[in-house]
């Protein structure tokens, strides 16, 4: 791994090519003239974002896709989103600025992720890719089966692919071994990969056995106007600790259940405000009942995204107990609201905020309690900076415009790379993913290719109506708005 990296560096330095990625040994990409690269920054892409997770579901991945798409639209690219149908919401919808969303009727299996058979989503996804003239397929989240499927199909159809990994995985247990194998297969011929933090990049490179040069690090961002401090709305007669997260194992709710009784016994003026819903809620409820803390631990249940800020500003300290986290948006939001942030030192969290804004602890009850105690004593003595100062410091750290710019460069780079032909792809799969998995997935790739041929015969491209662009270079969205008559029948 090390020798390969050096070679990449040398090559980049020698050729002065902005594209630092060493081309794959069996691809003729290195012959691209550098002029194309310079021109390509002006080039507009047609991007299809694919993920199982999108609005109306709420979460980090969902808002990432939405905000990134909006900023890319602003920069003149054409963006469509493909996700699965959420209950009654199926078909085609338009969001702000002509962001087109396909809610495809695919069966949901578990945790909002679709069932995968590698093939059954091909007809619909092919239809989307063809009629929208997609050039780049950007899949999100390794938990999303639809994203994996879309990458697989896009490669079969010869489109450029980009993948964003939003989460960290372990290596030890059986399920992560299987997921990592799947990720290896999916990513071995993907053009470019985006990770949200350096730790996440290391994790992904290890899991999927990737060349680190095709992995870019682009963090998430937070809209600072949504998270403004409001010291007036908090009760200064007591100290409030806010926790906003889904109540699941990965977010360390068991740790929280250990912290609450210990700190509440020590500080009689301490309150907990917990927003979120999940299977671990029962742990907190049992703790509350056991120690009679009904007036000091408030469980707010599921929060809408717009209510999060109003909850955050009611507290003094923001606590994050995650056991694993690629890039913690929650602590940025907390700091943006001017709170003192206490967090576990896991995953990419140490990279997110400067040391003066966050107190990092080990993911144990005793370490977290010690960290919280120190912050509480600082809060009591009044030696913490005012919320407005913290907000001012945080607000320009992560902005969506910057993220979109950097992602655009990733697209430019991905578009310069060739998409592997079927034989090359089969060879790559076999050489990269081990004998057994490689052979199985080569077989799948062949079947998928045959299925694509069958579909091309059954439903030829010339019979598909090209979609009218709502966004992108020749968007009719703005034009039609000026005319005062919109083609979009569904005002959402």
């Amino acid at each position, binding site marked *: 791994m090390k020798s390969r990296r050096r070679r990449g560096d040398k090559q980049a330095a020698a050729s002065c090519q902005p594209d630092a990625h060493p081309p794959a040994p069996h691809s003729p990409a290195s012959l691209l003239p550098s002029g194309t690269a310079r021109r390509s920054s002006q080039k507009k892409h047609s991007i299809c974002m694919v993920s199982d997770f999108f609005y109306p579901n709420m979460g980090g991945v969902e808002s990432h896709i939405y905000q990134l798409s909006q900023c890319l639209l602003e920069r003149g690219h054409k963006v469509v989103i493909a996700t699965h149908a959420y209950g009654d919401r199926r*078909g085609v919808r338009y969001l702000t600025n002509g962001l087109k969303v396909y809610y495809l009727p695919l069966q949901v299996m578990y945790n909002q992720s679709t069932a995968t058979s590698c093939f059954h989503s091909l007809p*619909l996804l092919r239809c989307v890719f063809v009629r929208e003239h997609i050039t780049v397929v950007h899949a999100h989240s390794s938990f999303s089966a639809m994203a994996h499927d879309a990458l697989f199909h896009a490669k079969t159809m010869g489109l450029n692919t980009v993948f964003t990994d939003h989460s960290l995985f372990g290596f030890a247990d059986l399920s992560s071994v299987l997921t990592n194998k799947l990720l290896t297969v999916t990513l071995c011929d993907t053009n470019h990969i985006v990770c949200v933090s350096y730790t996440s990049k290391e994790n992904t490179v290890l899991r999927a056995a990737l060349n680190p040069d095709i992995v870019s690090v682009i963090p998430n961002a937070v809209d600072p106007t949504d998270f403004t401090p409001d010291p007036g709305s908090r009760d200064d007669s007591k100290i409030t600790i806010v926790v906003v997260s889904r109540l699941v194992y990965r977010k360390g709710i068991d740790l929280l259940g250990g912290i609450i009784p210990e700190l509440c016994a020590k500080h009689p003026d301490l309150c907990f405000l917990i927003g979120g819903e999940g299977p671990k809620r029962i742990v907190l409820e049992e703790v509350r009942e056991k120690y009679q803390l009904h007036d000091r631990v408030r469980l707010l249940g599921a929060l809408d995204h717009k209510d999060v800020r109003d909850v955050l500003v009611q507290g003094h300290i923001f606590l994050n107990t995650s056991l694993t986290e690629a890039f913690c948006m929650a602590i940025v939001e907390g700091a943006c609201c001017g709170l003192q942030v206490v967090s576990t030192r896991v995953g990419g969290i140490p990279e997110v905020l400067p040391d003066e804004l966050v107190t990092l602890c080990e993911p144990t009850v005793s370490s977290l309690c010690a960290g919280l105690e120190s912050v509480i004593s600082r809060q009591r003595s009044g030696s913490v900076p005012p919320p407005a100062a913290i907000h001012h410091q945080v607000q320009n750290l992560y902005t969506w415009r910057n993220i979109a710019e950097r992602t655009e460069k990733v697209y430019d780079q991905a578009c310069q790379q060739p998409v592997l032909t079927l034989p090359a792809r089969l060879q790559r799969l076999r050489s990269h993913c081990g004998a057994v998995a490689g052979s199985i997935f080569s077989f799948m790739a062949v079947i998928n290719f045959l299925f694509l041929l069958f579909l091309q015969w059954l439903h030829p491209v010339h019979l598909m109506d090209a979609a009218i662009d709502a966004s992108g270079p020749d968007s009719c969205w703005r034009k039609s708005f000026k005319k005062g008559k919109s083609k979009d029948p569904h005002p959402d």
Partner: protein
Amino acid sequence: MAEEGPFTDISGKPISLECQNYTPFCREFTVSSPKVSLLKVMGYTCSVWLLAYAVFFLTENTTVLSSAIMVTLVGMILHIHFVKVDQETLLIIGSLGIQLSSLYASGRESTTFIEMSKIKDIVINEAIYMQSIIYYLCILIKDPSEPDGVASVVPLFQSSKPRLNCLVRVYKSCQEIIAQSR
């Protein structure tokens, strides 16, 4: 007044669009799909009967034959009476309303008239149909309780399913008339 274009439906079968201008505010669009092909009917009938005969040969039960004949006959009658649509007509009369009618292969005609005061707009929409995504023309019906809301959507040319170029043509002339009558 009739205009013929090289129009096809979404599966590539040729259809014809006939547009008749009665007055500037009254137009009629007729989309006709190809008639039931006799060859196809014969093919289906023959295959069903051959199958029935094979079963009869194995079981030596004559009810198989008679039931096969009944099934083909009833199936054919149901098909031409309820499924196969030969012609779909859209009659738009400015300030009065829009009338949709479809003529089945058996000669049965079903008609709906929607008054202009109930119509919010005519639009081209996208929908997922079977395993593909298609464009279709539809009428938006006003919600009486909410002036800007849409109560329901009435799809047009549901059985012939023309492609976008045909839809755009109908859409444009419909919009002309609707704009006039406002």
